[in-house]
């Protein structure tokens, strides 16, 4: 007799492969927390979340909160925005290497007219979020971290 019991198929389906969902990560940001995952195999921190460790691919991951502190590695000032961001220009996307290891992308809270190459290497801390209201292609409210220079 070939075929599989429905209950068995349902049981297989119930296995969870994602320790920290993106929705939970965004909820964390909204609560002022930068959430990530700590790997039981290599000890590395994954952020933004992925189903596997971003450093060694292991799946034994535990949800943690990062300090939100790090260093600016690069940035730009956007003056020609894509549809949906016209009213935000000029704004400053940046990459921040967190104290815990992974880089995250966000906004830098700084005067766009005076920001210069000197901010690369500066210490920052997550100070809030930017909320994007979405559009017909990416519906719903979405957020990214905002960083402020602390030194």
């Amino acid at each position, binding site marked *: 007799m070939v075929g599989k019991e429905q209950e068995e198929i349902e049981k297989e389906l119930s296995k969870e492969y994602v320790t920290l969902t993106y929705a939970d990560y965004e909820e964390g940001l909204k609560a002022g927390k930068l959430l990530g995952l700590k790997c039981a195999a290599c000890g590395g921190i994954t952020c933004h979340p992925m189903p596997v460790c971003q450093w060694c691919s292991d799946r034994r991951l535990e949800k943690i909160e990062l300090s939100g502190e790090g260093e600016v590695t690069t940035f730009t*000032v956007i003056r020609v925005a894509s549809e949906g961001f016209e009213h935000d220009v000029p*704004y400053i996307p940046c990459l921040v290497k967190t104290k815990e290891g992974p880089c995250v*992308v966000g906004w830098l809270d700084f005067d766009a007219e005076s920001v210069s190459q000197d901010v690369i290497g500066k210490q920052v801390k997550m100070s809030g979020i930017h909320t994007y209201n979405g559009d017909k292609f990416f519906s719903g409210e979405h957020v990214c971290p905002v960083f402020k220079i602390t030194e």
Partner: protein
Amino acid sequence: MRDVAIIGVGHTKFGRASKTSLELFSEASLQAMDDAGVVGTDIEALFQGAALPGFEEGQVMPAAFSAAELNLGPIPATRYEGACASATVAIRDAAMWVSSGECDMVLAGGVEKALTMGTAFATRTFAMSCHAPTEGPVGLTFPGVFAMAARRYSKEYDIPLDKLREKMAHVSIKNHGHGALNPLAQFYKKMGNLKVEDVVNSMMVADPLTLMDCCPFSDGAAALVLCPAEDAKKYTDDPVYVLGTGQGSGSSLSKMADLTKPVSRIQSAKVAFKHARLEPKDIDILELHDCFTIAELIALECLGFFEWGEAAEATAQGETDIDGKIPTNMSGGLIGKGHPIGATGASQVYWMVKQMRGEAAKGNQIDPVPEYGMTDTLGGDFGTLCHIILGRTKK
């Protein structure tokens, strides 16, 4: 596995097109078929790069309709999407189908109508090949990504940003110079004599990239006919052989180890060189993905033509111009020729074939004709990379 040759090429005028994507792709395809001396019934499969047809014309599944438009019959016809590298990925797979023996004659290329969308909407749709969950809410744009790479390059190699901007300007000056000589280019007979000041003082798009550091939005198509190398001489006296290909994939921006050394590109190029059994010193000419001036510098280094951090100065010294060490983007590149994203990879191969036949426009044609050439195409923020090495003789 069999060796593969390109026996026919076609290319529409790049710029603003009133024709539909289906018409543009048909035009390039029929040129390529005429060039090869083949007819529709000879074509066994179609491979089409098209990145954003759903947004441009409300059209998905354009490959099937392209085959239908050309009356190719019920053959396999597949759309390839790797953002701006779509056509190169399509051509690479087409070459593999021919190489495997599955097909003896195929059509490959790409098409896009990006200019038609207008700047704000086109920028939105292009940004869709950024990592949507993290980079979407940030409002990152492609100029933004490469502006971040430029600032990293300045920091990494300790080149003051204003000096780097001047060196980057030479990419725009060179590529516009050659684009102005290319009758199929979007900027034919335009901006052929730019100066550094024209580039650095033009409108700021994403600091430090100005409008003149950026390629334009474009409409256009290009197509090729491929067959087994052993049959190529039946169709043409000047076949161009596909000697090696490579493809690589990248991550979201935040998971890249180094914006100035994208692993996806380094890996893809390495595989292409290995397949071709060639090294950078063997390559006579490059068509590479200069979506932004800084992008050309990063590409030159990743492919191994210059040491890390040295492509900026080498470009300023003319080493990538027609009489330099490695002539790069003699078609005008994306900056001078235009960048209909789904067609760009096929356009790069088209111009490489033209160079090898000695048929590029005067002022752009290198002399003697190149023996070996390489194309480099980048999709997204280093998300899809694809390389093709071509030669006038089989290895």
